[in-house]
């Protein structure tokens, strides 16, 4: 067997060596939460801000998210959604089999593809698919879904320690970061290496609360790394109103308002599924 990790092969090296960084997961066009998260990251003295991809989907006005990220100097990599939008692939690449999930995913994709400018599609095409950087002496590798596959879902109750260990061994990293699934979680191995799913800014995480999340990472040579999940409250009622005004599905607005996922549920493992309302 070969351990060929896509993220290792394609990672762009970030030149800085940091003690504290903020890492954003999927934005899903939630530009209002993104504005708030940028403010919070600066207030917490993040030396760099990274975004692990999936800029569009679910929400309105995708160009606003691209502009905000560029203007703030965020180090942005692409996710499966960005690959699909940039290359006009026709669907989001999430690989759903439930016709209902596919229906809503297609509405979201078609809206985002139609309203992402040619300039922003060109920008998305140039984004790297992974980053490598040093955090307090620790080698960090980012990916979107998993280090081996952009659209692989890594859920907390679906990801064995042995798989995390294998990814860490194959990449030489001390810390792996990902997003894609939509729910934050952290796994630390006994040797202190680990994986952090940084969560997403795009939609709440199926817990009945409307806030969204990003991750602040600190590290130093003695204590290793520490992940702090930062809740972001924002004007979710305004975003839900804009979702409806743009004639996106009311199911998307309902998720923003209630904090419960209404679509794209099929890949949730049993333990994550049972926590949600639907």
């Amino acid at each position: 067997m070969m351990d060929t990790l896509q993220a290792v092969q394609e990672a762009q090296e970030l030149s800085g060596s940091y003690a504290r960084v903020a890492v954003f997961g999927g934005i899903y066009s939630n530009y209002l939460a993104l504005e708030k998260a940028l403010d919070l990251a600066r207030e917490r003295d993040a030396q760099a801000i990274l975004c692990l991809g999936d800029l569009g989907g679910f929400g309105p006005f995708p160009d606003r998210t691209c502009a905000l990220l560029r203007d703030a100097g965020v180090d942005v990599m692409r996710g499966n959604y960005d690959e699909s939008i940039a290359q006009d692939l026709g669907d989001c690449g999430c690989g759903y089999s439930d016709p209902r999930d596919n229906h809503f995913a297609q509405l979201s994709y078609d809206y985002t593809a139609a309203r992402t400018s040619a300039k922003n599609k060109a920008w998305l095409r140039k984004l790297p698919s992974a980053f490598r950087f040093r955090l307090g002496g620790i080698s960090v590798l980012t990916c979107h879904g998993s280090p081996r596959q952009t659209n692989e879902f890594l859920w907390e109750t679906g990801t064995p320690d042995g798989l995390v260990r294998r990814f860490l061994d194959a990449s030489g990293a001390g810390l792996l970061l990902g997003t894609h699934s939509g729910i934050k979680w952290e796994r630390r191995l006994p040797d202190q290496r680990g994986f952090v799913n940084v969560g997403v800014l795009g939609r709440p995480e199926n817990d009945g609360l409307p806030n969204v999340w990003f991750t602040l990472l600190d590290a130093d040579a003695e204590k290793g790394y520490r992940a702090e999940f930062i809740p972001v409250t924002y004007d979710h009622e305004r975003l839900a109103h804009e979702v409806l005004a743009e004639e996106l599905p009311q199911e998307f607005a309902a998720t923003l308002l209630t904090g419960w996922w209404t679509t794209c549920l099929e890949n949730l493992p049993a333990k994550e599924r049972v926590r949600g309302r639907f």
Partner: protein
Amino acid sequence: MIRAQVGIAEPPPVPGQPAHVRLERLNALWFQVTGLLCNLECAHCLVDSSPRNTSMLFLDRATVQAYLQEADILGVKEIYFTGGEPFLHPQMPTLLADALAIAPTTVLTNGTLITPAMAQALRRVSDGSRYSLEIRVSMDHPDEAENDRLRGRGSHAKALRAVLRLQNVGLPPIVTVTDFLQHNGSSLFESFLAMLSREGVQKPRLKMLPVFHIGKLEDPQTGSSVSQAMMAGVDPLFLQCSQTRVITAEGVYACPILVGKKEGFLGSGRLRGNPGVDLVHHACRTCYQTGMSCANT
């Protein structure tokens, strides 16, 4: 997802020769835990299971544990138990607990043996792990008479009873449907969702499988081998045999579809260094055409 393979140079394809697929990664490890013994005899069974099929022995716990240990080292993502009917194995909850110590685990069942006590036992096993325990309950038609024509009298009611028992202990099962009656996927999916909702299933989960002309539906005329030329430019990860192995009492098989078939048998050794499989069986063509996976997603 089909993507051209990059990296190691492969020899050019030989026209007419069957493709050879290596184990690229161990994503799913399956245990054929009760061999081919089942308490039902479904008309379309892939592996020809029945109450009389004792041709393959049950797996013992030591064998399961040894392969789990190796799979952990190899970075396995998911463990599956299948048969036959897995709950005919007297140690099933113990085996599931062993697997759940390593990785998320799924058991495929017809549901007939999910008693209230077994549902509670499964809940305890699930609570003992950080990983998800998934129970896949097989049904083939939302209509009771149609379903039972394929799966045996009373099987619809018993499967549905199991689904509700599992839901009641907080383990929402995945109903697995083989599209045998060719209702074209989408409408069968919708009618199953409607039936499950009507019966009180609050979070219906469905997995659809295509029909394979193998086992009870053996028909070599429906397919042929997959050639090297056909695989040119196709990412081998499109095929589940590049990331799956099945452990049986006889040894290792390439995928759950080919259990009991000489074309899928890969010897009795360890997983590491396991040889790849030649796609010579006619069922391989169905995987090639559909990209299907026996895994949950």
